[in-house]
């Protein structure tokens, strides 16, 4: 498998990915071997079924949405570049980068982009707002089937009420950032 990986991934590609995402050489090769192990069809791209074959992802409440996040609008296949681009969101922010990239456009793993990624997982219809229904759907996925709709509804209402500052009964991206400000995620520095 190792030899196959190195023949299929050229040095120039690795360099490009490195520049775009900021991963190191070893990380890229390792992720590439993972990519190929997932790619059962051996055609250099991953489809949704390839992802769904991962057992832990099947029991993850957000599994489907995470999978969807990998696929750009309307497409059914993702190549290695796209795979890496999505994963780049989760790279920890390094101090030396902050100063380097100040002038350039924001790197993929900046805090804002990380939060944007999470926001997009809530906001399925991409209208830049998390409506009550979308929130309800996420809550329903996380909580399971035992809880009644009304209870979930109250929770959703309360959540929106806490976060909503402009009174439009939905959570915009800025409100989302503010509400999640106090959360210390390990990867979301």
């Amino acid at each position, binding site marked *: 498998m190792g030899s196959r990986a190195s023949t299929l991934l050229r040095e120039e590609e690795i360099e490009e990915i490195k520049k775009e995402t900021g991963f190191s050489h070893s990380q890229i090769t390792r992720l590439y071997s993972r990519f190929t192990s997932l790619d059962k069809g051996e055609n250099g791209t991953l489809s949704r079924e390839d992802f769904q074959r991962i057992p832990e992802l099947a029991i993850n409440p957000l599994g489907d949405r995470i999978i969807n996040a990998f696929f750009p609008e309307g497409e059914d296949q993702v190549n290695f570049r796209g795979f890496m681009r999505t994963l780049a969101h989760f790279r920890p922010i390094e101090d030396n980068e902050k100063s380097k990239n100040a002038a350039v456009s924001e790197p993929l793993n900046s805090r804002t982009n990380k939060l944007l990624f999470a926001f997009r997982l809530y906001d399925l219809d991409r209208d830049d707002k998390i409506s009550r229904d979308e929130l309800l759907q996420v809550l329903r996925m996380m909580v399971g089937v035992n809880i009644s709709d009304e209870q979930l509804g109250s*929770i959703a*209402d309360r959540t929106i009420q806490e976060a909503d500052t402009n009174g439009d009964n939905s959570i915009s991206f800025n409100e989302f950032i503010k509400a999640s400000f106090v959360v210390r995620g*390990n990867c979301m520095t």
Partner: protein
Amino acid sequence: MPSRTGSHSPTGIGKSLPERGLLLLMVLVLLEGSVIPLGAASSPDTSHQKNVDSHKAEGEKNHTKKAFPVLDLDYHHIQTPFEISLWVLLASVMKLGFHMIPRLPGIVPESCLLITVGLLVGGLIKLAGEKVPPVLDSQLFFLCLLPPIILDAGYFLPIRPFMENLGTILMFAVVGTLWNAFFIGGLLYAVCQIQPANPNELHQLEILPCLLFGSIISAVDPVAVLAVFEEIHINELLHILVFGESLLNDAVTVVLYHLFEEYSAAGTVTVLDGFLGIISFLVVSLGGILVGAIYGILAAFTSRFTSHTRVIEPLFVFVYSYMAYLSAEMFHLSGIMALIACGAVMRPYVEANISHKSHTTIKYFLKMWSSVSETLIFIFLGVATVDGPHHWNWTFVTVTVILCLVSRVIGVVGLTCVINKFRIVKLTTKDQFIVAYGGMRGAIAFSLGFLLKKEEFPMREMFLTAIITVIFFTVFVQGMTIKPLVELLAVKKKQEAKRSINEEIHTQFLDHLLTGIEDICGHYGHHHWKDKLNRFNKKYVKKCLIAGERSKEPQLIAFYHKMEMKQAIDLVESGGGVNLPSAVPSTVSMQNIQPKKPPPAKLVEKALPKMTKGREEEIRQILRSNLQKTRQRLRSYNRHTLVADPYEDGFSELLIKKQKMIALEKKIKDMNYYLTVPAAPPDSPTMCRARLASDPQSYSSKPAMDRVPTIQVDLASPQSPDSVNLMDEFRRVDQQEEDQGLTMKAPSGQSGPNRPGEADRGREQQKLTRCLSDPGPSADEEEEEEPFLP
């Protein structure tokens, strides 16, 4: 003695409150100081007197009869408990007194003040010529004073930040303490050996006692850290780092202490001993945790069955934890780690099982005990300082203090360099400084030193003096200056914001997200294992340890319930419950937290069109029947029964239903306009009774509900739909035949002839307050199954 009072008290007539408080304080201290030596003095006298009397009595039995003692002083009989109570009282009054003094609590941390008081009391006792009681006896300290503090810390340990930083904490605790011990011990030995010219007592000091001393003094003390850090409100990360370190280094200290103590008699330590020491460390720490976890699971399992004996629930928590501590100490395992493990393991399950009141009880008892313990420890430190045989040696003491500081700084900086390679959120220089500066020594070090036997360690007094000096230095100097330093360095403070539901959702969301990403990458990291543990917990453990339906409750829902409960209690305590009835329904509803939002539309729609005249009569009938049962019942006094906890009786359902009720109430109020009779003002009791007489239906017999017969007042008046008591819908209505359409459950009782509106208000408020603190009659609370509206 009384003359001293004069010298302390401020002269002048216009004494302000703080000065009065100060005066009171002084008086109490003096009282304490004088009673104890008096007690010590009088007891031998009394017993002697008794002996003499008995002899005399025997001798004179045949001749005279001693007069029957009407009033007798027998201090000896109650001496020990009395003195203990006096100490506890002193400690508590001190705590009170400090906060009455105007500016002092801001400048000087409480621990310093307490040590000063201890010094005072010890001084007084000594001046009185009496022997100072050996208060900081190791037995007393380790078995009585320390466990409450540690249990309080362990039970309320914030698990998530602790686990997230566990690697860092362990590094500091294990490697840091080892480094400190060897550095201090080794360098002390080296320093003691230089001075070849004059024969110095220090030359007698072998390497092993030095290392033993190093290990005693190197451990950061949880009591001192808690006392100081509590007041500076530092950010959560630093707090958990220093505090976690102080808790987990107990295992290292125990092993090192025993190792060096054992072998300092022999004089040498071989490699084998070192190896055994490492194994011993693993056994001590993991064994301690295991013992704690076992007791924790036992406690959780026991709490599953306590639904009928709520009064003793807190006892299980305390007793199991204490037994975990004692069992660990029995095997020379780390008692502190056992206690922490026990508290942390049992907490989620116990909290799901026990009633709200028991939870409050546990919380306040733990806080109370740990607070008193802490105060006593510091006072005793002061007393023991005055008492203990001291042997001051300038070189030894100063070198010790300097070495402690230096080794701590080097240790922290060095370890942080290594740790930062593995951390995502790195520790900055400011953080490192606070961690190093916050490494306080405290009473544990002193007690360990006290335990040393004089025969084996001739230098015991010197050790004790040095330990006390270091403790004083860290508590006074470091304790007093850390607050201004924190301000100066602008270290991030604790965020006072309460945990919101947003945070909770987002945290869980992130957990799932990151677990998913880890799975995609094939990387079995932190999140992966946490997720597996959670799943295991949900699937198997919760079913065993949590009673009833709550075993299936997702974490989010539990959190939400807790929040709602808190909000409800706040609402009532702030007096919001007084304005319950029709006036402003939205403020009443504890569930209805968005006043802007209209209540659920569907109920309203149904209610509105169906309210015809005939329907209105139905409502009136149902209301009448509902309102007839009295609410207050006199139960026979039984101190073993707690009134039922609303939470188990479907309080959560209550809240949801209540929202609907309030919504309907609002609509019914609007219905007023359809009824021709205007709403009348609340009547006097006489009017009430007059109305009663005219209404034949008011005295329908109630089925036996095993209650004390009570006055039944019919409050259904045609004009007050707000006499609807909407909250009791979950009680079963007895006159089933009356239920058409609108079904409402009868309330379980009411007070005597009240005004209708007031009665409602009163009832609602009573109901609310009762629900939340004293739910009242509960024998027949059953699940409501019929919907309010068809």
